[in-house]
């Protein structure tokens, strides 16, 4: 039943916001309706039209809210006029309500560029994902009160900046704020690897669920397809990516029999279909790279020339220093470690990378491949001193220590 409620939550909220326009109050009303359902349905049974039931209960709450506001402000006429006339008459709970799905409008509102990334993420998880504030707070390791404030400020920003509740145009979708937010949520979950952070891996599942939903709403958008494929192809390696103590296991040392074959097959199908249909974009390319890795039986058997070609195309889309670093790794795999190192020497001039721990880590790996033991140890240690990730630090120091013994 929890599953059904979370599936319905964005549709119900979308419908209520469309009718009453007040996002913040609608969100509160829908939370109350979901709570009522969670209490009543286990004994009374799930109604025949659960979505209509929830919309109706939330609408009643909205009317109550509007009335109490009106009483408080003594401005009944103005406020009541905000309620469309057809809704000033109560409806029967199961009366059919039009089946228009407002989820996309809702998602676009929550990911609006007027909001900061952390607010977009929090609001999306709450309003579209149907997670409770406490669940989101736990996932991001902040107090519940802080997360509640973040969400209510985000709602206030939507109200004050006049973000329209409207379906995004193709152009707005292509700007990618919705996709980027889902991608950030996925990363939050996927990169969490151990201990107290284990709970955060639920975020990866949630991001995949939301990406599936977006894909269902816009099945012909190649980048949305690419994003879903990228998540599936990356997540397929999740269990192999960490050891028993939560330590990071790099791609070339992972037990590939533990990769999720069904998920890989689904991701490969999606990205192949998207590539065949339309213009390529960065998510499709990243998904294609992930697919090449996923389909190889080992690092040596990986089609590195293909990966190098894909990174070259990706660099044209995305001036991201991490992409440039991965491109350098691909160069090293195709043309040798020395060629990779000379590419790194060029990248070092980019101030975003000069002191970045990953530049040091990649150089350490390449020096190791060249047999420069002392250089590799030095750079692993320098990378370890610069990273803010505990899992990454531990991996880099283990790598340095292994070289010291060998």
């Amino acid at each position, binding site marked *: 039943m929890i599953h059904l409620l979370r599936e319905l939550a964005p549709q119900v909220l979308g419908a209520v916001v469309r009718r009453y326009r007040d996002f913040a109050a609608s969100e509160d009303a829908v939370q109350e309706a979901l709570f009522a359902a969670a209490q009543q349905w286990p004994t009374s049974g799930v109604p025949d039209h659960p979505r209509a039931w929830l919309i109706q209960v939330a609408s009643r709450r909205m009317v109550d809210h509007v009335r109490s506001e009106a009483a408080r402000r003594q401005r009944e006429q103005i406020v009541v006029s905000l309620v469309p006339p057809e809704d000033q008459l109560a409806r029967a709970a199961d009366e059919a309500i039009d089946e228009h799905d407002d989820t996309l409008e809702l998602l676009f509102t929550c990911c609006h560029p007027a909001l900061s990334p*952390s607010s977009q993420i929090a609001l999306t998880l709450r309003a579209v994902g149907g997670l409770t504030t406490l669940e989101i707070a736990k996932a991001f*390791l902040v107090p519940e*009160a802080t997360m509640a404030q973040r969400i209510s400020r985000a709602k206030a920003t939507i109200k004050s900046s006049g973000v329209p509740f409207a379906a995004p145009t193709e152009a707005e979708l292509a700007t990618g704020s919705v996709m980027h937010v889902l991608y950030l949520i996925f990363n939050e979950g*996927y990169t969490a690897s151990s201990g107290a952070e284990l709970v955060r891996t639920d975020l990866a599942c949630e991001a995949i669920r939301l990406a599936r939903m977006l894909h269902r709403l816009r099945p012909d958008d190649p980048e949305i397809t690419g994003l879903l494929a990228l998540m599936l192809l990356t997540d397929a390696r999740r269990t192999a990516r960490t050891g028993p103590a939560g330590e990071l296991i790099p791609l070339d040392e992972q037990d590939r029999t533990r990769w999720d074959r069904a998920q890989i097959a689904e991701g490969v199908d999606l990205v192949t279909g998207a590539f065949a249909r339309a213009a390529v974009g960065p998510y499709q390319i990243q998904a294609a790279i992930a697919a090449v890795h996923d389909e190889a039986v080992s690092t040596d058997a990986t089609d590195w020339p293909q990966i190098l070609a894909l990174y070259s195309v990706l660099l044209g889309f995305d001036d*991201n220093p*991490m*992409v440039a670093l991965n491109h350098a790794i691909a160069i090293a795999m195709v043309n040798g470690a020395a060629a990779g190192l000379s590419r790194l020497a060029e990248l070092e001039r980019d101030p975003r990378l000069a002191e970045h721990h990953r530049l040091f880590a990649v150089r350490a790996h390449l020096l190791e491949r060249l047999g420069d033991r002392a250089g590799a140890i030095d750079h692993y240690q320098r990378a370890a001193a610069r990273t*803010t*990730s*505990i899992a990454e630090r531990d991996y880099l120091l283990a790598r340095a220590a292994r070289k010291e013994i060998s």
Partner: protein
Amino acid sequence: MKFMLMMNTPTGGPYQIAKWPHEDFRAHIAFMKRFAAKLGGNGELVDAQGLAGPDQAKLVKGGKDGAPITDGVFPESKEFLAGFWIVDVDTKERAYAIAAEASMAPGPGGAPLHLPIEVREVMSVPPEIK
């Protein structure tokens, strides 16, 4: 990204709040409360605590058997931690802006203290993997 903002102050330095005129002390505490409430209201505050004075502090280490050996903090210790904030923000620039605001807490006569605030990122998982 989470950051710890540490308000370090030299022993015997300007942060002798107990010796300030009472209304200046009250203005300072009111500032700190308002500041924490504001960060909470922004959805940025993870935690904020003021620490008891250094004369209450002990230095503790494990002895040969692992039992605690306590010692008073020596008066010549150069600086002590008066309090800290942990904030969760989108950028390090935002953490610096918060630190600068804390640094301007009022001191004697209501003048800003310009206290140095040490800003340290809390280790976490990598922000993005490409």
